């Protein structure tokens, strides 16, 4: 089983990750720190797992996390906690161009810094949006005082 092999290898990476407890998922999941993302993707590719279903931003036990849901006959999820405002993740678009809109969405909706991703123009939010990242529970950017122009 390719996902099984990848899971065992990813768990070795994960053993060095911080030991915060996270929610259980009905599919295999590995908790990784932000800088382990690219090595983890390499392991997945070596095991012939290419399909990225989506990237989910979610608050889990006070931590904002990014969930990378991969699939190959069965699902495997990489859970990356975004510990603080300085935490950023690398873009996957160099190896998985299909991740582009998922990353743009995570960046716009959750205000997560994704290194190497061009976010100079909005993709989902209006061009004149000034309200910060709308899916954040705490405002990532101070909401604009002035009213939005039409």
């Amino acid at each position: 089983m390719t996902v099984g092999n990848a899971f065992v290898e990813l768990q070795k990476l994960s053993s060095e990750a911080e030991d915060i407890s996270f929610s259980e998922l009905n599919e295999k999941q590995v908790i990784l720190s932000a800088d382990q993302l690219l090595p983890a993707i390499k392991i997945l590719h070596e095991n012939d797992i290419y399909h990225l279903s989506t990237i989910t931003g979610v608050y889990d036990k006070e931590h904002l996390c990014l969930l990378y849901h991969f699939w190959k006959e069965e699902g495997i999820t990489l859970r990356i906690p975004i510990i603080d405002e300085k935490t950023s993740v690398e873009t996957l678009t160099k190896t998985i161009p299909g991740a582009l809109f998922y990353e743009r969405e995570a960046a716009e909706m959750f205000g997560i810094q994704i290194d190497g991703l061009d976010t100079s123009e909005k993709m989902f939010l209006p061009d004149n949006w000034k309200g910060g990242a709308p899916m954040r529970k705490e405002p990532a950017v101070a909401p604009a005082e002035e009213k939005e122009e039409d």
Partner: protein
Amino acid sequence: MSRVTIPIGPQHPLLKEPMSFNITLEGENVIDSALRLGYVHRGIEKLAETRSFIQNITLFERVCGICSHIHTTTYCQAVEGLLELEVPRRAVYIRMLLCELERIHSHLLWMGVLAKNIGLNTVFMYSWRDREIVLDLMEEISGGRVSHAINTIGGVRKDLKEGQVQKLSEGLSVLSERVDELLRIVDNDRSFKARTQGIGFLSEEDVRRYCVVGPVARASGVDVDLRKNVPYACYDELSFKVVSMTEGDVWARSMVRIHETSEAIRLCEQIIEKLPEGEIAATAKRKVPAGEFISRSEAPRGEVVYFVKSDGSQTPARVKVRTPTLTALITLPRQLSGLQMADVSAVVAGVDLCIACADR
């Protein structure tokens, strides 16, 4: 030669839903294209966090205006997973029946859109005429032509009656003949082939790198179908073929979709034949135990994923919706590069875009 940028959308006859699409031309040749989404972004995922689990069914039915039933089915599967609820088999079969009718409806609608975009108005009229049959059947079962409101957490809200089964059988046999006729056109018509063959090519490698799903992926030789690979509902009890081709162009996508429509008709017939007796819904608690659940299913356009997180209350803490066309959109500039302006309409229709799904 000087370059010209032509804006297509947000409102444009080529697009059925709003999206901005700037095409840079050098003479008649497409050099570059740039996308902008968000014109139908309704903040559904955020809104879902303010409504109860049961209220959200109505909300997710409105993610897509074509494949509404698959969204509620996938969402209900996730919530039922968190509740560890066993759904009665009859309810699962009725859900599958609607899913397959919806596939027929979506593919016939798409056939009309493609035919219209490439100037084959007769095919457009025929396929939309035939689509009426399946819309009427869905209305007969659920009361709604597009939004069926038949799913609930734990099962379905309406049972299938004997008279309806009879009407279904009759409708399906008419549809079966009509779809064969469409297949004959796609497979033989010279005009159709001239406008679609070798256009909008995606290789198997492209499909893998861009995470493309559904009929577009299957037309490029990637035969992934979640109904077969991860048999959710009761798809493992039914027999059907996963149709795939290797050409990777708009013609191959048409062939895949038409063959899939025939398979969906066969699936509906099997579902009616094997429909189990019994209850149509299990009682579900309003409060959902804390946890996270991923539910996957095969929509007419490909993989739909719902990630549902509950904190133990009556409202979900987070719902993430993955819709199939978001990744297909990213491939558009690649598919269009090097083609002529006149081919843009065929390529855009060929991927079967659903902008409302992509935006949510």
